[in-house]
């Protein structure tokens, strides 16, 4: 095409050339830059909000954790695990029941763990382990002999012991030799509870220890302290339940 033809073409259409170029450029900018970026901006706004919330939550969590003394917390946890261990603690409970019986003025005649129908020692979930909400328990039959006047003391000591024990049945028979001496057979449920599976949640807020929690821990510590040193209670199970 000759230069003169180009000039003629330009002269005849010069009014529309630049606007058409602008229009095409605008369409290009809208289609490839403005529209996609605006959509991404809107989509990412929600994600940004979530990031901000998560950041604030985690910072609050960090601040809350930094307030706690690790050793003190660990000690309190041990106290709680003595009271309600993660698994059965047959060895510990037998010593404790003997201790409570002696403290209450009773002599322990026998302590037996209830067996299943097959007659084999209880174990796993096939024994008469029952579930109360999140709690499990195992049955113990405690037979003691002692003064009738001290029975209420025995029952109170059992129910306020540092280890969670519930009384199911009470059978009392007078001793043939003396009406003041009784033979007591107590069916007990000793509670324990494994940890829930979803205990640790990364994004959930951290619980705090309330005044009631501190009082309960203090009561448990005092109750454990009254148990004689000859029967040192220790929590049953792994030192670190999360390993």
């Amino acid at each position, binding site marked *: 095409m000759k230069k003169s033809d180009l000039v003629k073409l330009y002269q005849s259409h010069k009014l529309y050339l630049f606007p058409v170029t602008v229009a095409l450029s*605008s369409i290009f900018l*809208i289609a490839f830059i*403005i529209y996609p970026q605006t959509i991404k*901006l809107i989509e990412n706004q929600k994600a940004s909000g979530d990031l901000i919330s998560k950041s604030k939550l985690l910072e609050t969590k960090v601040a809350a954790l930094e307030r706690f003394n690790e050793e003190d*917390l660990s000690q309190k946890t041990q106290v709680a695990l003595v009271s309600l261990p993660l698994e059965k603690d047959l060895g510990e409970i037998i010593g404790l029941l003997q201790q409570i019986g002696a403290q209450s003025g009773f002599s322990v005649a026998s302590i037996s763990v209830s067996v299943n129908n097959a007659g084999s020692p209880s174990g796993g979930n096939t024994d008469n382990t029952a579930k109360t909400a999140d709690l499990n328990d195992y049955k113990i039959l405690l037979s003691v002999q002692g003064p009738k006047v001290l029975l209420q003391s025995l029952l109170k000591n059992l129910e306020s012991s540092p280890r969670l024990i519930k*009384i199911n049945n009470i059978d*009392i028979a007078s001793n043939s030799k003396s009406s003041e001496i009784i033979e007591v057979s107590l069916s007990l449920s000793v509670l324990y509870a494994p940890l829930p599976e979803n*205990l640790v949640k990364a994004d959930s807020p951290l*619980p705090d220890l309330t005044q009631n929690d501190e009082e309960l821990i203090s009561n448990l510590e005092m109750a454990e302290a009254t148990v004689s040193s000859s029967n040192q209670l220790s929590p049953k199970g792994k030192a670190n339940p999360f390993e």
Partner: protein
Amino acid sequence: MKVFINLLPPEIVASELKKAKFYKVQFIAIGVILFMIFISSLTLALRVLQSHNNSLYKTKIAQAEQKISDMGKTQNSLLVLKDRLGMISQHYKIQSQQSKMYELLDTLVPSSVTVNAISIDKKGTVNLTVLTSDPAVLDQMIDNLTNKEKNQQAISQTGVDGVSRSASGLYRVSFTIKQKQDK
């Protein structure tokens, strides 16, 4: 009276009008393209700012998660402690029905009555066997068990299962006492 006379030839007038129209269209087109460039730049700038902020928050989150991980033992202890305390508080020092029933019977059974056997089951139902030689004391005991004021409204039903009297005048009485269930 003013008279307006345009001495310009019509071709020049048309040409001037065409020129004016041309400049007007060019001006609008330049305005539009500048506006488009401005909007594009603004959008890109906002996206860059958003990405930058997201990166900052992600960094903060990573740092916080690292700190929480370093304090994992403290967190685990706290969670285990709260879990335990929640359950312990529901059961610690809670007097059982059986224990309450025995405590009540201890006050209702006169001291001169000999308790031969007591059995308190899971529901708090009591099977009681007593011995006494004095029928008046026996009457008093039955009154204690059945009187709502004396039994603290804790007993819903008292039944006598059996009465026997030995040759020596010793009464042997068996009771079934049902505890009032809390609704």
